[in-house]
């Protein structure tokens, strides 16, 4: 990665945010709704990318952080009648706390063992959701009623079920997380994470506490993923255990691989690509997952660094 002037990098990212803002006004209704969902889930992918792309830790359990946010926000609204902002904070806090505990335990391992340990914890989390079905709704899940999904700020209320408000809510979260991620990976801390990914022993030898840095990365990643989960519950009104299943641990991995690991915009591109391939091909065949699979294989063969990774490699070396 060649270093670019900060102005150029920030201009690109703000340009992407402005483009997404403008799209709200020109896209057909259906695509506006789909983009809101994609932006909320791209945040999940960005959280995953922080750990996988920049630290090189491949987790197979990130569904637990997403669903910690989903349930942290959803259950406080459903059972305690909390407002949207408090529920969002509760969801992020749940995810960050869970990430801290899981990080302390799982970071004693690395490589394949890290994958297995994170997957096992995620499975425990998933089964706990089923076990406490009286509160979580088990495998059927819970609906957050429309009336509970309204934010009142200074006498003005924003109904998250309104397509434009929902789109803007998802865009706001996406923008904040994108800029935080960008600042993070450009910071000294971000460089240390990349150094750990490239050669942990050497980084340690240079005097960095690699375990502490990795733990911070796990917590940051968990918090971002839980922000996505919390937003998903509040924006779309459904909280269900399938979001904690192994499928939702693998999906962010695929989105990031497709878009480009260790690129700030890759998670958005990967999520967008995968969603639209599924959406369009499912209209023609029930074997759409086969097409998604073939697309993935082709990408691994011909663009192993993902879409944004390949663009960076071939044309725009300054992309973060």
């Amino acid at each position, binding site marked *: 990665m060649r270093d670019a002037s900060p102005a150029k990098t920030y201009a690109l990212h703000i340009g992407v945010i402005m483009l997404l803002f403008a799209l709200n006004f020109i896209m*057909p209704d259906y695509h506006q709704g789909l983009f809101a*969902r994609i932006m909320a889930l791209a945040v999940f992918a960005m959280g995953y990318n922080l750990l996988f792309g920049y630290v090189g830790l491949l987790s197979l359990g990130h569904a637990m952080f997403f669903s910690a946010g989903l349930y942290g926000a959803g259950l406080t609204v459903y059972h305690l009648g909390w407002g949207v902002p408090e529920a969002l904070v509760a969801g992020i806090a749940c995810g960050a706390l869970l990430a801290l505990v899981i990080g302390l335990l799982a970071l004693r391992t690395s490589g394949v063992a890290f994958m297995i340990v994170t997957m096992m914890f995620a499975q425990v989390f998933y089964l706990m959701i089923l076990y406490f079905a009286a509160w979580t709704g088990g495998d059927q899940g819970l609906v957050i009623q429309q009336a509970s999904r309204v934010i009142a700020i200074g006498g003005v209320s924003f109904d998250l079920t309104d397509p434009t408000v929902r789109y803007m809510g998802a865009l706001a979260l996406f923008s904040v997380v994108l800029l935080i991620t960008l600042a993070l990976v450009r910071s000294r801390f971000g460089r240390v994470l990349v150094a750990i990914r490239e050669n942990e022993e050497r980084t340690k030898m240079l005097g960095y506490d690699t375990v502490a840095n990795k733990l911070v990365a796990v917590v940051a990643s968990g918090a971002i993923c839980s922000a996505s989960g919390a937003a998903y519950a509040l924006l*779309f009104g459904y909280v269900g255990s*399938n979001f904690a299943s192994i499928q939702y641990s693998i999906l962010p991995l695929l989105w990031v691989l497709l878009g480009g690991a260790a690129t700030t915009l890759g998670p958005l591109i990967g999520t967008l690509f995968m969603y639209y391939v*599924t959406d369009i091909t499912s209209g023609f065949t029930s074997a759409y997952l086969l097409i998604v699979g073939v697309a993935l294989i082709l990408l691994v063969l011909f663009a192993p660094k993902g879409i944004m990774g390949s663009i960076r490699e071939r044309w725009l070396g300054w992309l973060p």
Partner: protein
Amino acid sequence: MADKNGFFDLSKTTLSRRTALKGIAAGAGLALAPGFVRYSQAQSSAPIRIGFQSHRTGIGAAYGRWYEKTSAAAVKAINDAGGISGRKVELVIEDDGTDPARGAEVVNKFAKQHKTDIVFGTLFSHVVIGSAPAAGENKIPYFVVSEGHHVASTKLNRYVFQPGITDVKSQIQSMAPWIAANAGKKVTQIFPDFAFGYDHRDYLPPALKAQGADVIAQIAIPPTESSFTKYFPQIPAETEVIYHVMVGPAVLTFVKELGEFYGSQRPQLFGFMDSLEAVDINSPGLEFLDGSHFWEGSPRYAQPDDSAAQKAYRAAVGIDDNGAAVGDPKDISTASHMFGCWETLYVVKKAMEDAGYKGPEDRAKLVEATEALKEFAEGPEHPQGPKTFNGKIHQCFGIQNISKVEGGKLKVVHKTKIEDGLYEPEGDYTTQAL
């Protein structure tokens, strides 16, 4: 035609033949003008488009295939008889992958991209619950065929209806009197440790209690389990009836191991057909079920006393006397549930015609017209049997069948009454704004 004073004198007005012809020609010309044709078609003869949220892939695929067959047959029958208010009906199908997140997207797609009039056909409860918010936000009526209690619990929203199949709470309640009177009074339940099992866990004990019988043990089996023998010693020795509702591929192992555990000396067995939908009752390992009893929504096997409507329905859908696809005896249907698609589409027809439904602008009227429905008589439109409908909880109530496994077939031995399955409403959707 003005009189001398400049006023119209209608008494003196005469209409010549030439004038009449001119008028008719002008009217015909107007009607044939391209813009007018489009307008009149949009309002009166354009097809009614029904978005069918189908489980084509994922764990619900076996059901999804038969739900599609049944719905296609119902649409053909409705169209052959003139459609809905004279308009043809057209199914627009999207696969939801039996996934609630995708389900919500599919509902959005129907409402905003395909612009269908309603959404219909979902079975799996988690997909219904995941999709319901999208239906409410789009204000598009969502007719599900799920049998879950979620609609009747009034935890969803005013746009969600289940008028073609009874809910599991009602089904369980209807079974209790027969079990207590005929199978035994000491019941042990074995159920999967997730929501489908919990409905049975929660609703059966009070229903049996009311009949003077008791659930003496409840054994929840984790969904990840593939062998069951270790759970069987937990079944109390005094058990008179084992009530089992295991579902999924593990059911064959479950029955085989239960057979090995008991041998020929077994308690009575009572199960729900959900366990064996799309599965051949004569599959190896299921011999142990011979002589046991099952709940069936609509009988899989043709019965000697089948009504003409039931016979016509089976022929239209394409199932033979054994409940398999005509021409493919190995392709077993999901007969206990799929009739709900047929009946729901006829409820939609009735409600649309009652509402004078013209297009999406009349969706609120359609909701109110559906809520106003009270009962559906047994007949070609409702071949499973008569039903009542509670507009406050958007749920129908009907008869249930209890069938005995005899000689590799299921024979209906008892039909419950509608009243057996009624319960106190838990809320009222009609108080919610449209």
